[in-house]
Structures are given as C-alpha cells and as structure tokens.
C-alpha cells in the first residue's frame, strides 16, 4: 500500500533537501552568533547605528510673474532623545526654565512618544538663536538634548492671499493612516491643512531623505555610514498676480467681504481676497493656543474663505441671467418693453420696485441700467422657474466651480422639485419673481458670480476657475502645465450677449446707471450692481440704523474693457448696503491700479522696499 502511494526515493530526496536547508541555517547562525558574536555585541552595545531623517524642503509658491510668495526659513527645534536623557527630570527642569514652558509638559511629551526610544521627541519649534547658542554651550551637561534645523513655512507678504495659499498644521490621526496621500509622514509633521498648501500637498512635500549614523553613548553623531538624499518639493506657479492681489487688498481695506479678479479669456484667477484675512505665519511652527482661539472666536470668521465657502443672495447681479433666459426664449428682445409702475401684483403678493414711482416703459437695457425690479417681475411671469433655473445652472450656478481649493460651497438654484423634496411645499409664482431678481432661495458664492461675468464678457464660454498655472521642480524645470479648462459653452447667441453687455455698459457709463461710481475716463467698464436683502423690512427704517448683521449685502460685478475684456471682477461687501455705493467705488480703485490712462494693462511690481516692510510685519 505504502509503496504505491508514495515513492520512498522521492521522500528521501525531500528529507535530504530539508536537512541541507537546516544545515545552512545552522551554519549561518553559528557564524553570526559564535564566530561574529563579539563583533555584533559591541555593535549593539557601544556603537549605535541610528536613522536620522533629513526632511525635504517644501516647494515654493510663486506668483504668475515668478515673484516668490511663500518660501521656507530655518527654524531651530529642540528635541529630547529619551534613550540618552537618562535623568529626564533634571533635563526637563533645565529646559523648562530656558524655554519658559512647563516641566510637566516636557515629561509627558517624552513619556507619551510612541516612536523608538532612540528617536528624538520634539519639545519646541522655532526657538530664538540666543537660546540655540545657550544649548550648544551647555550640551555636555544636557545629554539627550539636541537642536535640529527644520525649514519652516514663511509667507513673505504675511496675510497676503492667505485664503488662497492656506496654512500648515500638524498631521492628524486620520491623515496619518492615509499612506497614499501622505507617504512616510509621522506624528508631529507639518502638512498643508488649508488652501493650496493643502490641495497641492502632493506636489509641495517632496521626499524625505535620511542617513544612517553611528552615535556615541550620549547620542552625539560620530559619523555617517550611508545616506539617501532628499528630494525637494515642487514649486507652484500661481495665476495670482502679486501686484493685483496687493492692489485689491489695499483697496478693500478692513471691510468684510470678498474680491475676485479673473482673466475672462482663460479662467485664471489674478487675485482672490477674502476679508478679514489671517496671517499664515502664525501657523508656521504650530499655532499657539491663544492665536488659534482669537482666530476661531473672531465674530467675522477670518478663517472662512468668503469667496468660495460662503453663499449669499446675488440680488440684482442675477438679472443678467434672467435677461439671458428671456432673450434666448424669445420672450423679450432688444426693443420690447414692460411697464414698471412701482409695484406688480403676482398671485396674492404685491412686489415692489425699489423706485417708488416706477420706471415707466423700460427696455431690457434700461432695466439693467437702472436695475428695475418691475421689469424683471413681469418677465418672470412669462418665464417660470424651470427655464430660469436651467439657464442659471448653465452659467455654473448651483454647483461647485471645481476650483482647486478645499471646502467649496455649491450655492443653490431652486426648482419646483427641489422645493417639494426639501420643504415639502409647492412652488409659488411669487417665488419665481424673487428668484428673477436674485432673492428668495437663490444663493451663490462670489466665485460663481465672477465666473458668470467672465462668460458674459468672453462670448459665452464658462471656464473652470484656476489658481495654479504650472508646476516646476526645484531646478526650475516645468513639470506640469495646467491649461485653461472649459466647463461648457453656454447656450446663448452672441447677439443676445451683446444686448446684455450693452446694458451692463450703461450701468456704469450712462446717466441714471446704478454703477456710475465705478466710471473711469478712458476705460470702458461694464458692470452690474446688486443689493441683496438679508431680512425683509416691514416698515421703512433707515438702513444705517439697522444692526450690522441685518444690513443688505453690496455686490458689484464687472468687466473691462467691454470690447476686448481682460479683467472680470466681483466685489462683495458683506452688510455693505447698496452695491453702487459700497462695492462699485472699490472696483474703480482696483481698475485704476490695473489699467493705465490709455486703458492698457500695467504690470509694475511692488518694490523690494514694500516687500521687506511686510516681511518685518510677517
């Protein structure tokens, strides 16, 4: 039986093979444990071989003309190596005094470290150079304490473009588990947590290197045994223009709101500002509890990017979309008129125009120019919400633009179906009238509005807003170029866009135009004001008497020059009241800075002096 099931000779062969393998294992163990045992014992006891990580420098941010916006500066960090700090209480006491931090914190940090005991535990980042000198002098009496240089993030112009650039923060537990996005990151590492620092992390971080070093008994490096070079992160060239960005920030002053300047022919964002802003340099070495608290508890929420994360009623700036729908549906044309008598009855509601006596017979161009509500109420009766919503969505409203920044909001374009699903109610015609003038359920982000204006300016092409132009490696070789991306061609005829552009030109340049405060001699600006209601007022109260949080929002969207648009812009002032009074003048200042007297673009750079002044502040 046995002889049939398996052959003895083959079993014997297997046994021989197995024995041979065991003999090889035995000989190798004999060699390393008996013959080389002494050598390895010394290696394990006296000389220690350790791994030291060499962090890769993070990539830079450059503006569209190659000006450096964010770089790295050296930061001196204090570490304790638990294995070498034999008398931890003594060392903690010494360090606590020098660095004015609590002795207990130091001890907890060291005790809580999950890393191997020979790996340094970070005690404090960015200590002043005088304290570095002190530690170097006293290093013999402080075994286990080391100071290492780490490149620290540094925004050269302080808070400039802070919402675009973002900030760094320590990696959190969840991100640590994500080895795909954050390969090789460890607890305590700083990674991009907001803005482009976050969304471009993969390009910026580079690849850490390291070296195997031999250290003596107190942990000092004796010699480098071998090493792997680090790969610096890539540099990011933005579409942001430092000149325009600083112009915008100076023009907007300390009001609350947002400004976005865009190149309407590419979707490139030349400036994006949300106010109040913050200084990313506060985050560079890990933000202090006090700084964090003051940012988070600030009632104006400086960490919120109002350009993309906040949604507001667009008010009268929405009238271009209502007009587009009417023109494209053939309900109105250039010469057709509606009569505005100051109020319109829709269903059971009476809707009022802002001008008590009404505007009389108005064409679409007049209606845009004077921002006549009556015209658009009557137009809305002939359109219905579904056509209006369809057009608004084709202009990119109601969904994210896809800009390369975290936490963008989609805003809302209401439809009958939406209302039935979320509120369980039917749609009323008066709500279509509200939507037609950008009130009611309609909400947008400033970024979406500047995209709408860009599309009107460039002949109906909706671009994806872009912040990054290209990526270069540390040797300045181009690694990746981001080409303009078209979201869609808006289904509207050029002749109809012309009518709308004509109306927008009139807003700024004709008598009775609501945006006349943006008018510049020699530059053809087209625009539209918007005053978005925050609450409905029962009786007439003077707006300035209202508490700030109930005041209307001020909008001004515009582009210039009309015939060959180079700039599209949205200015939004939160609770700024009238768009024509609060937002249009800011746009004027910005245009004056961007264009020279002949209406040509100017690109003079901020001087070094100015840079260094901000540098000191940052």
């Amino acid at each position, binding site marked *: 039986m046995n002889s049939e099931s*398996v*052959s003895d000779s083959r079993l014997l062969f*297997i046994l021989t093979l197995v024995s041979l393998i065991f003999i090889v294992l035995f000989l*190798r163990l004999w060699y390393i*444990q008996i013959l080389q*045992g002494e050598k390895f014992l010394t290696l*394990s006891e006296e000389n220690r071989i350790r791994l030291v990580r060499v962090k890769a420098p993070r990539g830079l941010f450059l503006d569209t003309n190659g000006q450096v916006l964010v770089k790295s500066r050296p930061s001196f960090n204090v570490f304790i190596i638990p*294995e070498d700090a034999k008398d931890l209480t003594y060392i903690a006491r010494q360090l606590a005094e020098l660095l004015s931090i609590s002795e207990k914190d130091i001890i907890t940090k060291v005790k809580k470290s999950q890393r191997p005991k020979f790996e340094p535990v970070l005690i404090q980042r960015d200590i002043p150079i005088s304290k570095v000198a002190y530690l170097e002098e006293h290093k013999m009496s402080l075994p286990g304490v080391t100071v290492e240089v780490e490149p620290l993030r540094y925004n050269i112009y302080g808070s400039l473009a802070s919402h675009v650039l973002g900030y760094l923060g320590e990696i959190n537990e969840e991100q640590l588990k994500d080895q795909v996005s954050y390969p090789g990151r460890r607890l305590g590492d700083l990674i991009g947590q907001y803005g482009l620092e976050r969304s471009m992390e993969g390009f910026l971080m580079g690849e850490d290197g390291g070296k*195997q070093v031999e250290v003596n008994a107190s942990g000092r490096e004796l010699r480098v045994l071998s090493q792997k070079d680090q790969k610096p992160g890539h540099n990011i060239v933005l579409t942001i223009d430092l000149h325009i960005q600083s112009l915008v920030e100076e023009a907007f002053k300390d009001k609350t709101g947002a400004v976005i300047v865009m190149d309407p022919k590419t979707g490139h964002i030349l400036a994006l500002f949300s106010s109040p802003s913050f200084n990313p340099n506060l985050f560079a070495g890990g933000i202090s509890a006090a700084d964090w608290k003051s940012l988070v508890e600030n009632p104006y929420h400086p960490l919120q990017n109002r350009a993309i994360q906040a949604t507001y009623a667009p008010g009268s700036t929405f009238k271009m979309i209502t007009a587009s729908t009417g023109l494209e549906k053939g309900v109105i044309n250039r010469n057709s008129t509606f009569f505005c008598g100051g109020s319109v009855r829709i269903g059971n509601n009476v809707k009022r125009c802002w001008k008590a006596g009404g505007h009389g017979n108005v064409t679409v161009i007049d209606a845009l120019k004077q921002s006549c509500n009556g015209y658009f109420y009557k137009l809305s009766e002939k359109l219905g919400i579904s056509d209006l919503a369809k057009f608004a969505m084709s202009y990119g409203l109601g969904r994210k633009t896809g800009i390369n920044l975290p936490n963008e909001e989609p805003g809302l374009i209401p439809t009958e179906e939406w209302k039935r699903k979320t509120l369980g109610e039917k749609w009323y015609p008066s709500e279509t009238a509200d939507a037609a003038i950008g009130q009611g359920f309609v909400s947008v982000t400033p970024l979406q509005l500047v995209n709408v204006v860009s599309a009107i300016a460039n002949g109906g092409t909706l671009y994806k807003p872009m912040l990054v132009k290209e990526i270069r490696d540390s040797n300045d070789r181009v690694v990746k170029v981001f080409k303009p991306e078209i979201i869609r061609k808006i289904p509207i005829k050029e002749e109809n866009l012309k009518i709308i552009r004509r109306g927008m030109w009139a807003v700024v340049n004709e008598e009775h135009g609501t945006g006349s405060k943006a008018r510049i001699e020699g530059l053809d600006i087209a625009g539209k004001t918007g005053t978005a209601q925050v609450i409905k007022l029962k009786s007439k109260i003077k707006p300035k008497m209202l508490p700030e949080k109930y005041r209307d929002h001020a909008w001004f969207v515009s582009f210039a020059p009309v015939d060959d648009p180079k700039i599209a812009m949205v200015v939004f002032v939160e609770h700024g009241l009238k768009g024509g009074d609060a937002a249009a003048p800011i746009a004027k200042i910005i245009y004056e800075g961007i264009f020279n007297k002949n209406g040509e673009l100017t690109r003079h750079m901020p001087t070094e002096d100015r840079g260094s002044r901000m540098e000191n502040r940052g």
Partner: protein
Amino acid sequence: MFFSIIRKIDWLLVVIVFILLIFSLLNIYSVTAEDQGTEKVLRQLVWIGIGLIILISMTMVDYHTLSAFAYPFYFLILIALVTVLAIGPVVSGSQRWIRFGGFSIQPSEFAKLAMILVLARYFSNKKRGTISFIDIIITGILLCVPLALILKQPDLGTALVLLPIYVAILFIMGLDWKYFLIAGILGICAMPLMWHHLKPYQKNRIISFINPNADPLGSGYHVIQSEIAIGSGGFWGKGYMRGSQTRLNFIPEQFTDFIFSVVGEEWGFVGTIGLLILYFTLIYRGLYIASKARDRLGALIAIGVIAMLMMHVTVNIGMCIGIMPVTGVPLPFMSYGGSAILSNLAGIGLLLNIQIRRFMF
C-alpha cells in the same frame, strides 16, 4: 473510538507544537510587555484557543470526509480573496484583511490549506507516474487563480508559499524529473519579466538583499539590525527581556515577522538552535507520517502541510539572518498573528489525522 484516537495520536508532534506555542507567548510578552502589558499575549492566547479547537476537529473528522469538502472550501476562499480586494481596508499599502469585530482575518493564510486539500483530492485518484500534461494544466489553473488574487493584494510572501505546495505534491506524484528541470529554467528566464511587475518596495527589498547598503533606511537597515540583534546574542543570549536591540525598537515587527531576531538576541545560539531542532523534528515527523499514510490522499495532504511549514520556516529565518530577501512571511507557531496560527494548527490537525487513520480500515 475516542480512546483509540488518544492512544494512537502522535504525541511527539503535539508536544513540539505546544513547546513552540509557549515559547512564542514568552517572546511576544518580552517584546510587548513594556508598552502594551499583556494585551498582545492575551489576544494570541485567544487565537491559540480557537486554533486548538480547529486542530481537534481536523483530527477527529476523517480526512476522507474533509477532502470531500475540498472544492467548496477552495471556492469559499476564492470568494474571500475577492472580497478582500473589494472591501478590505488598506493597511500600509496592501489589502490583506477582512475585519470581524475586533479581530481581522487574513484569507490568504487559509488559501494555503485550500490549495493542499484541493491538490491532494485531485491527485488522490490518479496513478503515480501517470500524470498527463492536462493534469498539470488543470492543477496549474487551480494554483494560479488564488496566487494571482494574493499577488494583487499584494502579498508576495504568502503567494510564494503556494508554489512549493504545488511543486512538492507534483514531485511526490512521481512527475518526471525533466519537468522540474524545464520549469526551473523557465522560472529563471521569467525573472527579468517578473521584475517589471514587482512593486517598488518589493524591488527595494530584493536590491537591498543583494546589497544591504543600497537602501540603508528601509529593509536593508532592518536586516542589518536583525543580524546585529541575533549575533549579539552570542552563545547564551542576553537573557529574557534583556535584548537591547529589541528594547530600543531597532527591529521592526519584533513580535510578528522578526520574532526570530528576538529569540536570537535574548536566548542566544542555544535558543536559535533549539528552535531549529524543534522545527526539524516537526518536519521529519511530518515526512514520516506521509511515508506511512494509509493511502495516497493522506500522503499528499501530509506532504502539502510539510511543504507549507518548511517554506515558512526557511523564508522567515533566512530573512532574519540575512540570507533571504525580506518578505512578510510569519514563523509558524512563533509569530504573533491569528490567521497564521489557525491555518498552521489546522495543518498539524491534518497530520495527526493521517497518522491516526493509518491503522483504521
């Protein structure tokens, strides 16, 4: 029945396995006591408990009955392997586990058992020395499906263990020498081709095996540190819970893949050679059981189990002492990890089963 089983059981095998398990718990405790107390040891004890229940059932139920379920078991494993790829969590770059409550199961560990049972079942009614080319193709497909799924995780180590099971069973079935020669040559020729399909970290491990200084921060470093640990143990070792290499966390995965380094450092040459003797006796005993098996099915299952254990021992110890590249293969009965303990104890159960039933007709 029960008493006749107790009387006929191969107690030597049982004793060896128990010594290994106890020794394993001692070493896991040595490494984890400081940071995690008894948590890991208790978890491992739970796995051993479950494993022993499996061992007993694998011993009691006649292996002929077990082999009747070979194909359903095999397909169940295939489904599990696909599930892992579909929904398994990604842990350090690979998907190997399915979670059940607080415990994770690694289906690839059980794929080895399924492979053994399916191949043994397939060949049990073929005459020795009459294996046709079609047989090789069919069993080749049976091998390659789970192999590909495991490589996809990717888990090169476990995938590699499937090969010797296949080869050993074909060898014992009397397949002509020339086939092994051809396969060997083809294998060598295919190496450059396979190189392109390896993941970067796998390439690094092989490069650093050939030249440890090529990747001093990665696996090369680990192997150097492991060698230092084992070598510094000398003849008697540094003593239980006294290994400085281990204490200072120079060695990665100390209680899983690199537990042999802990043994080497703390128990010295005495400990490592002791382990080698235990493993050799285990393998020898398995071969003996194979040679005395009542029928071909029994012999083939026994050979498959031996091939699996031998591959694990060789690859794992070889890695720790720097004569094999780094692959994540656990040391049988020693490394921490539930699935491996379960499948290895099941394997021992099969060996005991075959040993007992050689007398029964």
